[in-house]
């Protein structure tokens, strides 16, 4: 895969840039159990980063944790941007399961 320098969606890029510029030393979306997160993207990224720590244990490179969190934020944001254009209920994923053996 080539790393693309091409802009994707201007808005996407701008928001990513904002995220990259944000301080990442501490989980930024930390919230109390009864609070609604002020920044759901950051809160989701923080939660997923913690899930990654739990899942990968001591093989997760802790020295790169901030990079991992930053990258996960980008992925969460991608999920937001993929809500448009609006899909219909019948729009299936672009792969199909086949019951027969190849």
């Amino acid at each position: 895969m080539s790393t693309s320098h091409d802009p994707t969606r201007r808005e996407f890029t701008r928001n990513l840039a904002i995220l990259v510029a944000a301080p990442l030393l501490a989980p930024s979306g930390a919230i109390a159990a009864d609070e609604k997160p002020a920044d759901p993207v950051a809160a989701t990224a923080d939660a997923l980063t913690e899930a990654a720590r739990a899942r990968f244990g001591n093989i997760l490179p802790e020295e790169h944790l901030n990079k991992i969190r930053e990258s996960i934020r980008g992925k969460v944001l991608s999920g937001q941007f993929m809500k448009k254009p609006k899909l219909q209920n019948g729009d299936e994923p672009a792969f199909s399961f086949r019951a027969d053996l190849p």
Partner: protein
Amino acid sequence: MPDKEAVSEDILYASIREQAKLIGDKKLSPVALTEAYLDRLEKLGPKLGAVVTITQDLARKEAAQAEKEIKDGKYKGPLHGIPYGVKDLLATDGIPTTWGAEPYKDQVFDYDATVVKKLREAGAVLVAKLAMVEIAGGFGYNNADASFTGPGRTPWNLDNWSGGSSSGPGAATAAALVSFSIGSETSGSIITPAAYCGVSGLRPTYGRVSRHGAMALCWTLDKLGPMCRCADDCGLVLAAIAGADPLDPTAVGKPFTYPEPMMEDAPKFKIGVLKGSATNVQAEVRKNFEASLKVLGKFADIEEDVAFPNMPWGPVISTIVNAEGASALRDLIESGDCKKLKSVSDQWGGYAASMVLAVDYLQAMRQRGPMKKALDELYSRYDALVAPSRGTVASPIDKDFDKAYPGVGGGPPVIPAGNLVGQPALSVPNGFGENDLPTGIQFTGRVWSEARLLSIAHAYQQATEHHKKRPPFPPP
């Protein structure tokens, strides 16, 4: 037939079609040609970081067999006796297949990839396994030094990158270490090194070429394709490797005929120019692209300012690459061996990729339906749409990609979009830019339209000389 000393540089840099004519006429020995390339691979390959394994024994055996068959009057066609290399993600029986990565450097398969088998059936001679960005760049490398063999260098300027992830195929083909090569593309990995190395690279339609035996990064995006010194050669190679394969259910038997049969009174090609494709690019890239349009205008009707659909191409492709890549390479990620990868961002990228939510992956895959419709509707009006292959020339080896050419981007996201919908693309050289590095123009078309793209690019190369230029390599 002459020995390897008699194989001139002109022959080494010749196209497949030119070499095949000499071989078919028994004026060029496949054994001598193979020995000459083996010599160059050994002496010059390391300077480019382009070679992982030179397959001397196999090459000599295949070359001798080709020579005997030709002598016996059993000439198989234009690839018979032609030496080639493959990106080191294609399995070769008994020869290491490293995927460019330290954790796999001793990996050996006991079978050949379908593409390797097909090329052997066509009489081609495998001379090398060529370097690549580790694990095909799936974990998000951010600089050229992302392979256990070191950075790939373009033969036009050794301080600059050869592009990736098919770095070795690009550089080795440009520097005449092989007659042609096979690369792979998930999103840009053929088009980019083709542009940065000044060769012609064809990304076929998804499903045109079997991927059996190829490292999987993304099952729904990976493609294999030829990298050659001209578009015409790409057609010859694609004709040999295309087709259905019971070992790869995505490979289909759609007819591919090259050269494309053309009616005598066929209308002129219709070519669209994507709006904004040459706006935010380096000045020389723009200048060369505009010059290319003038050439194309001599034999095609050109329509400028064609709008590209605004869809979430970037988020969709990155979500798919992350999710499928994290699954395909899960063993590596969970082994902890990512720390052995060369690029620092590759050392942690797999862990972040593993956290893509299933619903986001499915949402991305659902978006591909509307995307296919939108692009097919657009492309149905043209024989090809064109854009600069890349907005810049190759980046310097010692700079992170995002710091190499600040403020310069590209136009519409043709590469991710084309890969998402599975359409073909062909990059050919169209001049030189900063530091005398090559630039390229890419032709993109409707799915299964490779023959038309090749016809257009071949016509362009008949009218230009860019593809005939030789790099100043080895440097004096």
